[in-house]
């Protein structure tokens, strides 16, 4: 197992994170609670602006302090550093467990209804853990290829669904006032948990193009979400309320002349994306664990994280894994904006002290 840190290209990081973000699209329902899907259509581009604002301190920190957030947190003292690493570790572990849980739920409710979820969770963690132990550069290349495959499948689906679009399903997102928009904006922003990995892994890319990478990640994911929200609203209409997985339903509605129903492609894509997401977050978690216990090899750190997340995925019921909860938004804000702000504040304070 290699533990040295090699650089990856910014494009690889962006495409890998974008395809990982696609995972949440599969269990995504545009209608969120009492907020209609129309509102979500507007809240997606607004959430891009909010995410950009959240990441501004981090970008500033990279420019003025140093490239690695956790290293910079280390300069603020050991306890502060430990808290930061533990929070990042916890966030990554929760994402792995949640992904495994969602993946197993989909497979046992839609594909293999008589299979047990333990098998899917086990297989996903073993394969994901092995790939994570190989290192970021290995699976980020796979991520780029998967991104191209995902775009192909989504392009095919979009083309097949064009004749099914009914624009009469759309109406003004502000028809019910501004309050649903604010709620939807909070939820949509909270779904951008991949920003945690972006903050953790950006130091592995060539410096100098941070804004371009961030714009790429936010732009691609917002575009994909916008397209599928639009399709869910205009193709499925109110029928989407009856379905657990609207994207899977869209795939069954989409029929290409040669390929027939596209739900098989969807299942194939989701399995691959699930594998990549688990791999990426396991890698993120193992990196954090490795920082806490330097003697631990990367392979062992991955194994420990995989075991912990396996237990969590089996023990915690599926309903708990709501990626878009207000709690997630709070944690996301602390991790991607709070810690960089603390680093910047400390630097400014030190400067003022030395000036005096």
């Amino acid at each position, binding site marked *: 197992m290699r533990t040295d840190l090699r650089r990856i290209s910014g494009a690889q990081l962006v495409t890998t994170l974008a395809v990982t973000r696609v995972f949440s699209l599969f269990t995504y329902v545009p209608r969120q609670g009492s907020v209609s899907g129309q509102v979500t259509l507007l809240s997606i581009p607004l959430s891009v602006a909010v995410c950009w604002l959240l990441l501004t301190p981090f970008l500033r920190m990279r420019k003025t302090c140093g490239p690695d957030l956790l290293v910079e947190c280390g300069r603020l003292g050991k306890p502060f550093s430990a808290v930061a690493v533990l929070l990042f570790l916890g966030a990554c572990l929760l994402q792995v467990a949640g992904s495994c849980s969602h993946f197993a739920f989909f497979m046992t409710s839609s594909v293999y*209804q008589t299979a047990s979820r333990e098998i899917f969770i086990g297989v996903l963690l073993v394969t994901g853990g092995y790939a994570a132990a190989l290192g970021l550069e290995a*699976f980020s290349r796979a991520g780029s290829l998967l991104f191209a495959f995902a775009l192909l499948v989504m392009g095919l689906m979009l083309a097949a669904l064009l004749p099914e679009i009914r624009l*009469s399903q759309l*109406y003004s997102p502000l*028809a019910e006032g501004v309050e649903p928009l604010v709620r939807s904006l909070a939820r949509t922003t909270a779904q951008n948990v991949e920003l945690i990995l972006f903050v953790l892994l950006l130091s592995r890319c060539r410096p100098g193009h941070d804004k371009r990478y961030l714009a790429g990640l936010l732009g691609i994911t917002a575009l994909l979400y916008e397209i599928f929200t639009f399709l869910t609203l205009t193709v499925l*209409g*109110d029928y989407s309320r*009856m379905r657990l997985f609207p994207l899977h339903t869209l795939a069954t*509605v989409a029929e290409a002349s040669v390929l027939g*129903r596209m739900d098989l492609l969807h299942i194939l894509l989701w399995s691959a994306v699930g594998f990549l997401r688990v791999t990426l977050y396991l890698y993120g978690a193992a990196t954090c664990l490795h920082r806490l216990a330097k003697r631990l090899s990367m392979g062992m750190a991955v194994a420990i994280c995989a075991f912990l997340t396996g237990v969590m995925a089996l023990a915690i019921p599926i309903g708990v894994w709501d990626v878009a909860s207000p709690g997630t938004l709070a944690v996301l804000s602390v991790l991607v904006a709070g810690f960089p702000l603390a680093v910047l504040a400390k630097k400014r304070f030190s400067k003022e002290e030395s000036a005096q």
Partner: protein
Amino acid sequence: MKRLGSVFLLLLVLSGCIPTVPLNDRAMVRAVAVDLLEDGTYQMTLQVNEAADGGSQASSPEQTAITETGRDLTELLSKASISRGKQMFLGSTRLILLGERLAEKDILPTLRFFNATQQVAPTIAVAVVTGEAGELIRAGEKADQFSADGILDVLHKAQEAGYAPASRMLEFFSQEESQDGTPQLVLLEMERHQSEDSSSKTEKDAVKVSAETSSQEGEKTTRTADKLRVSGTVLFQSGQIAAHLDPTQTRGLQWFRERGRMKSTPLSVELPEGDLIAAKAYLERRRTRVRLENDRPLFTIQIEAKTAILELPEDLEADWKAQVETLQEQLITSEIQAALEATMREGWDPCGLSRLVRQQEAGYYWDHRNEWENWLSQSAFQVEVSCQVAHTSGTAQQRE
């Protein structure tokens, strides 16, 4: 990367360990008919294609009908599997037929069962059958026109001509789930024509199949020519039949509804002199707008249609084209008005006009959405139809 590749390879190889069902052990269900019997139990009739075994001379899959009765649909499918010794596979099912009695009581539990079955696509066609739906499936054993594909062909042709609405599970539930929509399905009827010598009689009630009569070899003079008829639309409320639209009213709705096809529909008119002009019409453009007038919605329906004249008499006046266009416009207008009278005036909204109001008069919609039926029945409609004779037969062109 190589090691990662080997993991994928291993997974591919291991995929053979997942329990699978060989094709020969599967019965591909092409169509399902569900009827409610008098005693309250369900009867399910399945049209299945089974792979021909090696010893069989038939090269194509064998098409058979399986009928089972029971208390719930899961039990019925299970019974069918046991009786055939094969797993019933619903992934290839293209059509669900519902018997009249079931449609009068409640079709929602039945459709929800199929909706919850992941193998069934939401785009599956659903139709209500006059009388017993299972008879249609059993007729398909001997006559291709009653196979799933044959019935779907009839449906598609009727939809192109405007005599049938879009009748898929997706549209049904989309309307059912919306607060204001009126779900609808196409109504099918099997007509049995029986001719004996030169005289002929028609049994409209339908339900005896050609197979039965043709097997009566002793009666040489008896021939049958059963056919499937699309007899309009049924509107539903809470899963029960609420209203019935005849084919003309159905076509009236298709002229202006979103995604109504109207690719080629017969449009014959009679001149004042009594001459009949037969034509095929197709929809060029449609637009429905809504605005408020005297605090109630006024819907303006604009239709532009083009027609191709196929039959016309000799010795027509010079302005025959203008006359024909006017008559065609009147005919389309009267069909639309008849459809509006039968639906909107009763508070039914099969065309999703509430969505139009939500788009174009949002304030009014959100203020009145809980009493949509009332204000729809009080709405005004303005129908503007424009017809243009685009093609004429060779004779007519010479006359011009």
